[in-house]
């Protein structure tokens, strides 16, 4: 990744996202989402620096925003980010056991990435899918009615590329 490439990527994203702008400064979060999607689930510091250069928003402020919101990461994450719901509706419906099974299957704790760089495990507050609790999301796709056995199969399937509905 050369610096020029990063510059061009961030600039293109910013121009595209700005089409949705109604007031100055109202697209920062949307832009950061797009940058993060582009760089596989995290925002490299070089990209943040370029965004500062293009928009004039201080780097310290960009960093503050990135560190405030849990969906953003300044650290490299896996190809797939797994967000598992820890809130009460899932917790009382077998969620606690599913969390344990998932940690065991992946061999990592919350906030960690598997050695092969494929999965990052994160805990999430309610994902608003309580009709099919317990639930988790892998990147943009949601999985419900989970059981300890089912999560293990899903992880294997995603790894083997067997699901048509999950994108890396």
């Amino acid at each position, binding site marked *: 990744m050369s610096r020029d490439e990063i510059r061009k990527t961030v600039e293109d994203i910013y121009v595209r996202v700005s089409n*949705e*702008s*109604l*007031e100055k*400064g*109202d*697209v*920062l*979060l*949307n832009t*950061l*989402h797009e940058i993060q999607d582009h760089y596989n689930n995290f925002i490299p510091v070089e990209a943040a620096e370029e965004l500062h250069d293009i928009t004039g*928003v201080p780097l310290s*402020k960009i960093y*503050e*925003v990135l560190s*405030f*919101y*849990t*969906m*953003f990461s300044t650290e490299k994450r896996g190809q797939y980010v797994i*967000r598992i719901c*820890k*809130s*009460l*509706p899932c*917790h*009382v*419906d077998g969620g606690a056991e599913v969390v344990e099974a998932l940690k065991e299957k992946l061999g990592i704790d919350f906030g960690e990435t598997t050695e092969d760089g494929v999965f990052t495990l994160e805990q*999430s*507050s*309610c*994902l*608003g*899918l*309580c*009709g*099919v*609790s317990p*639930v988790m*999301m892998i990147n*943009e*796709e*949601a*999985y*419900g*009615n989970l059981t300890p056995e089912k999560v293990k199969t899903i992880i294997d399937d995603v790894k083997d590329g067997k*699901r*048509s*509905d999950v994108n890396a």
Partner: protein
Amino acid sequence: MLKPITILVSVDSNSALLGARHYKNYLSQLVKKYNLDSITDVLETGSFGNYGEGVLISILPENIHYSVKSEKDIELIVQEYLLKGRRVPSLVVEKIEKEETEEKKKNVEERVVLRNAGEIDPKNINEYIAKDGYQALAKVLNEERIEVINKVKESGLRGRGGAGFPTGMKWEFTYKVDNPEKYVICNADEGEPGTFKDRLIMEGDPHSVIEGMAIAAYAVGANKGYIYIRGEYFESISNLRKAIEQAYEYGLLGDNILDSGFNFDLSVRLGAGAYVCGEETALIESIEGKSGRPRLKPPYPPVSGLYGKPTVVNNVETYASVPPIIINGPDWFKVLGTSNSAGTKVFSLCGNLINKGIVEVKMGTTVSDLVYNFGGGIRDGKAIKMIQTGGAAGTFIKPEEMNTPLDFDSMKNYGISLGSGVILAINEDHCAVDVALNLMEFFEHESCGKCTPCREGTKVIVDILHKFSKGQGSEELFNSLYDIAETMEASAFCGLGQAVPIPLRSILDRFKDEFMAHVGVDEAPCGVCKFPKKKKKVH
């Protein structure tokens, strides 16, 4: 051109995670493989309303519903029904029978907000328009602004996000401020644990939200609007973006809407995983590109909101309620509910219930109706232990309190919250200490850190509850939880911290003996908490 056969696949989130999108792809593939694509459309639609174990698909014009659980089921439908014209009885889902027994009548929903969910293709504006969509907007554009506000006031509509502030009054405050620049915002940062109604509305009927917002904007004199959707709601985000694009194409957004001279621009903003952004001033900060920390109130947003301008902030369900009120009149809406709480309410049923999902019923429906008639009772023949109503910031109640009607007055009259309409049923296997701990960890995690009472208060509460769950609690510690609750209620900066005492006190009040049963014993009495093993004394 419409093709002779239309297959609708329900791809709301709940179905999607049963594999709906995968099945839809597969169905399209097979339709193509058998050269049926010139006569068959495979389309996505919102929720059909009931969640069994399968993905629901509906085949038009015959209007048969099938429940699909595997790729095999899809193959069966294509081979039997599409190729040979034979029904597949083993997969057919019977719709509600025509002759309703008394028992069944009790379960009838009253759908105002969810009127179109599962009936129309949310990605096609024509289907919304065919169901009288944008009629209400066309109607108000010929009326005086204050007339519109008066109608909403008369209807008795109150905010559906949890606080229940009268919507018409909020609009009137904003209307009265003299400022050429005003905003309307839709709070779609649905994060209250157990709540998933806004997601269903946005995924199933996005135009109803856009129309409600355009009406609000016209009424208060705003020309710009934002829909702030939580970042994890990918489906809602893409459906609303698509809907906005179509509304622009049809001249229902943008400049000079329907030749009225009224301009309104609308845009989607994404949250990024912060519960506190559901608080309206934190949400405003977030749209402005900052961390979502709440502002000091007053001034309230109707006076000084986004970029310091007068701003209306309403919930998704509130906006979606507006078009039917305009079309059918305020009185129609009023009689649906109770004296102080007009209309219907969308409830999210979750936890250990047999039928989890969304129902829309009249205000004043009792908890027990929701749990037993709609929720089907508790799964696996277990007994019910407690119900949390209203969301994470709502109240825990015991089974004997379930006959309470839920509306905006139930907090005042019975101390039981309506909140965002959550009914979370918890069975006898669970421990009150563990439940309280899980809930308070949520608040600790989501506290934004701006004020000390909330940042430190939630942390101390979690520490104390941890002690109980490890057998290290005491009566003194139990009582100190009430002290922290009192401090937070009195001094937390925003609604998040001020609300923490509500669930905390309600569970402490009702389950004190269970907390005390964790004190002074060697083994946890509940089968959930795990006490550390005591070291054996060395003689």
